[in-house]
C-alpha cells in the first residue's frame, strides 16, 4: 500500500484544527496502526486513547471520515485512500487534547445507577437460571463502553444542557441489563422516567447503528424500558398500591427497602 493522507484534528479545549500528514500504510492495517505510526515518526505528542487494539476495551473511539468508529476495528481497506482520511475526536464530549475527550459524564451517570440487588439463593445455595433468560441480559453485558452511542445521540450531541437530565443510550443499556436480569429485585423505573430522561429518546436508532458490539440498543433495551416505565407509571393497580404504601409509611420516612419487582408485578396482576 502507498502513503495515505491523514487529516487529524489537533488541539485543546481552546481550539484546534485539522493537520495533514502523509503516513505509510501496509496491507491488512487498521486506522489505529497508522495513528501509531504517525505518533512514532512524525507527531510524538499526538494524544490518543487506546488499550487492547482488539475491539474489546472500547478506548479508541473517534470519528473517521465523519463516522463514529473504533480506530482499532476499522481496516484501511474499507476506506477510500485516494482521498484524505479524516480523524476527529468524538464531538459530544469536551476536548482534552487532540483525539482525547473528557468522557467523565458517563462515569458520573453510572454512579447514579441503583445497585444490582439479587433475590435469595435456592435452598441448595445456587442460583438457577435458564440459558434463554440469561441470553437476553447477556446481550447488554457485551457493551465495551466505547461511548460511541452516547456520542451520536442527538439529545446530548449538541445539547450540553441535557447532560444533567439524560442518561443516554449506554446507560439505558445498563438499566435494561439490570431490569432484565433474572435475579435482580430493584425497581428503577420511576428513576428512569423522572431523572434519567428516558422519555427524551425518540428512538431514531442512531445509537444502534454505531454500536461495534451490534447490541440492539433501541429495539432490545430502550423500547422495552419505555414500555415497562409506562406500565409502572400508569397501571391503575400499581398506582393504588403505591398510594396505600405511602399512607402506611410515616410521612417523610424512606421505605424500608426498595420495592421488589416481584412485589410490583404481583400487585399489577
Amino acid at each position, binding site marked *: 500500500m502507498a502513503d495515505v493522507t491523514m487529516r487529524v484534528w489537533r488541539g*485543546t479545549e481552546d481550539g484546534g484544527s485539522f493537520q495533514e500528514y502523509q503516513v505509510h500504510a*501496509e*496491507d*491488512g*492495517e*487498521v486506522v489505529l*496502526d497508522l495513528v501509531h505510526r504517525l*505518533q*512514532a*515518526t512524525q507527531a*510524538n*505528542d*499526538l*494524544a*490518543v*486513547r*487506546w*488499550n*487492547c*487494539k*482488539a*475491539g*474489546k*476495551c*472500547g*478506548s479508541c473511539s473517534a470519528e473517521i471520515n465523519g463516522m463514529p468508529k473504533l480506530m482499532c*476495528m476499522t*481496516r484501511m481497506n474499507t476506506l477510500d485512500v485516494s482521498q484524505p482520511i479524516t480523524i476527529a475526536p468524538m464531538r459530544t464530549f469536551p476536548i*482534552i*487534547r*487532540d483525539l*482525547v475527550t473528557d*468522557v467523565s459524564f458517563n*462515569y458520573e451517570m*453510572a*454512579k447514579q*445507577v441503583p*445497585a*444490582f440487588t*439479587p433475590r435469595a439463593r435456592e435452598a441448595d*445455595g*445456587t*442460583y*438457577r*437460571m*435458564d*440459558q434463554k433468560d*440469561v441470553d437476553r*441480559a*447477556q446481550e447488554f*453485558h*457485551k*457493551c*465495551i*463502553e466505547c461511548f460511541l452511542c452516547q456520542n451520536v445521540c442527538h439529545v446530548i450531541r449538541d445539547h450540553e444542557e441535557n447532560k444533567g437530565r439524560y442518561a443516554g443510550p449506554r446507560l439505558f443499556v445498563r438499566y435494561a441489563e*439490570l431490569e432484565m*436480569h433474572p*435475579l*435482580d429485585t430493584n425497581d428503577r423505573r420511576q428513576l428512569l422516567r423522572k431523572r434519567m430522561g428516558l422519555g427524551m429518546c425518540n428512538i431514531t436508532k442512531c445509537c444502534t447503528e454505531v454500536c461495534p458490539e451490534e447490541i440492539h440498543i433501541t429495539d432490545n433495551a430502550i423500547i422495552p424500558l419505555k414500555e415497562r416505565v409506562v406500565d409502572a407509571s400508569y397501571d391503575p393497580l400499581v398506582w393504588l398500591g403505591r398510594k396505600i404504601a405511602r399512607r402506611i409509611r410515616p410521612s417523610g420516612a424512606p421505605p424500608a427497602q426498595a420495592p421488589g419487582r416481584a412485589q410490583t408485578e404481583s400487585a399489577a396482576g
Partner: protein
Amino acid sequence: MTTITVDEVHDLDVLVIGAGGAGIRAAIAAKSEGASTGLVCKSLFGKAHTVMAEGGIAASMGNVYPEDNWRVHFRDTMRGGKMLNNWRMAQLHAQEAPDRVRELEEWGALFDRTPDGRILQRDFGGHRYARLAHVGDRTGLELIRTLQNKATSLDVRVFMECTILRLLTDANRVVGALGYWRESGKFVVFRAKATVLATGGVGKAYKITSNSWEYTGDGHSLALWAGADLIDMEFLQFHPTGMVWPPSVRGLLVTEGVRGDGGVLKNSDGKRFMFDYVPEMFRAETADTEEEADRWYTDKVGARRTPDLLPRDEVARAINSEIKAGRGSPHGGVFLDIASRRDPEYIKRRLPSMYHQFKQLAGVDITTEPMEVGPTCHYMMGGVRVDPDTGASSLPGLFAAGEVAGGMHGSNRLGGNSLSDLVVFGRRAGLGAAAAAAAMSDMPSIDPAQVDSLAREALSVFDRSGGTNPYEVHRKLQECMQSLVGIVRTGDELEEAQGRLEEIQREASVASVEGHLQYNPGWHLAMDLRSMTTVARCIAMAALVRKESRGGHTRDDYPQPDPELGKVNMVVRYNDGELTVTPEPLPVMPDDLAELFKS
C-alpha cells in the same frame, strides 16, 4: 533551583495501584473492611487488560463433573506449573475459587448455564475436568464490568488515567506513591498506610504479544526499586495461539476455548501433530489416537484428553518446533481448525468474539476455514514475592496480587487460573492491606525531598534536547527481547541480551520529549520505558541463571528439567543500583498434599 512541591495529596488507608480484576477486587475488600480506599489506574476505569481474558475462570464447582474438587484443581495447577508453584497459594486458590465465582454471580455476573440452570463449565488445557465458568468467550469483560459496578456502588474512589512513577518509602516502609495525571501532566501524591500493587504484566517489552499498552511491568519495577523481592522472573508464558496475520494484529489472542470446544491444531500436511509432542509427565492422562481424543469431549471417563489441550508451555513449544521444521502455515503459524469439526451455529454461539475478530480483522470466516495461529507473549508468571495468605510483600506496607505477584503459577500457568487468581488473591491482598492499615494509628509521613527528586527526574526528558526517541528505544527493546529472550533461549543469546539491554536502558534514560505535559504519549512512553527496561533485564538475568528447561522457560542448551533447580526460586533484588539474582529454596509442601502426587 526551586524545589518541586506537589500540592495535590490524597490520604488513604489503602492505595490500590491498578484497576484490573485483582485491583478492583482488592479495593472492594479493603473498602468493605471500612478502610478509606483509593484505586489508581493508567486507563479509564473498566478498560484494564482483564477485559481481554476470554475462555473463563477456573473453579472446581463440579457442576459438569461432580468428581471435581479442590484437590484435583490443586494437583492440576501444581503439575501445570511443573511443581514450582508456591503450594500454599495453589491450595488457597483451588479452595476459594468456587466461592469467588459464586460471589461474582451474586454481584450480577451472568455466566452461561447448564441445562438444569447452574453455572456451566468448559474444558481447558491442563484441567482434568470441565472447570471454567464462562460467558461465551468474553469472560474477562464480564468479570471486570461486574467488579467495576460493585466498586462504583460501594463508592470506591477511582483515580483514572493516573500513572504511578515511584513508591514512596520511609524507614524501609512503603508509605504511598508519587504519580502524575496523564490528562494534565500534574503530579499527585498518595499518602497511604498500605499499598496494593495490582498492575498486571510485562508483555509490551515484546514485539509479538497479546498484551495491551498498559503491560509495561510497572508494579514489578515499583516493588523492585522500593526494595521488595521478585521471584520467577524467567518464567514467561507464550500463549500457543495468537493470530499471525495480518501483521497489524500479530499476537492478538485466540482463546484456548477454541480447542476446549473441539478445535484441533494441524500442520501444513494436515496432520494433528500434538500427538507427537506428549511429554512423559502427561502421557498416562493423554489420548493416544485421534479417535480417543475426539471421544473425550463427550466421555471424560472412558477416554483420555486430547493432546491439543496439554498445558500451554507444551503446546507453544510444539507449534514452535513445527514451524521451524518447515511444516507451518503460509503466514508462519500453524492451523487451528474448528470449522471442519463443529457446525457454524455452535461455533458462533460458543466463540462469538473469535468469529467477530477473525471476520473483521483478518477476513477469515472461522466457521468455514481454519485459523492461522502461533505463539504470542501472554503472561508473566514471575512477580513480587508475597505471603500467600495476606498478599504482603517482603517490604512492610506493600502488598501485591494478580499477575504482578509471583508464586501462584510456578513455571507455567494453566488457562482459566488467571481470572480465579485475580479474585482470590485480590480479595486477600485487600483484606491484608486493610488489616495492616488498621494496625497503624497515624498517617505515615512523606519526605518532600524524595518527592522533589523523583518529580525532577521525571521532567528531565523535557529539558534535554537531541536525546533518544522513546518510540525508537521501545522498538529496539521489543526486537531484543523477541529475538534473544523469547520462547526458546540459549546461554549465548542471553549473555548478548544482557549487554544490549543495559545499553537500551541507558538510551531510555536519556530520552527527550517535545511539547507539553498535557496528555503527551511521548512522555508517557518515556516513563513506561523505565519499568519496561528494568523488567526486561530481570527476565534476561534470571533466565541466564536457570540452566534447565521448565514450564515457560526453555533453554536450547539445557533442554531437560534439572531436579535440583526444581527446588529453588530465582529471587531478583535491587541494591544500590545493581540487580542481583539468588536461588532460594521453595517452601516445602506438607505431606498430606504431597500425597496427591504419588499416584
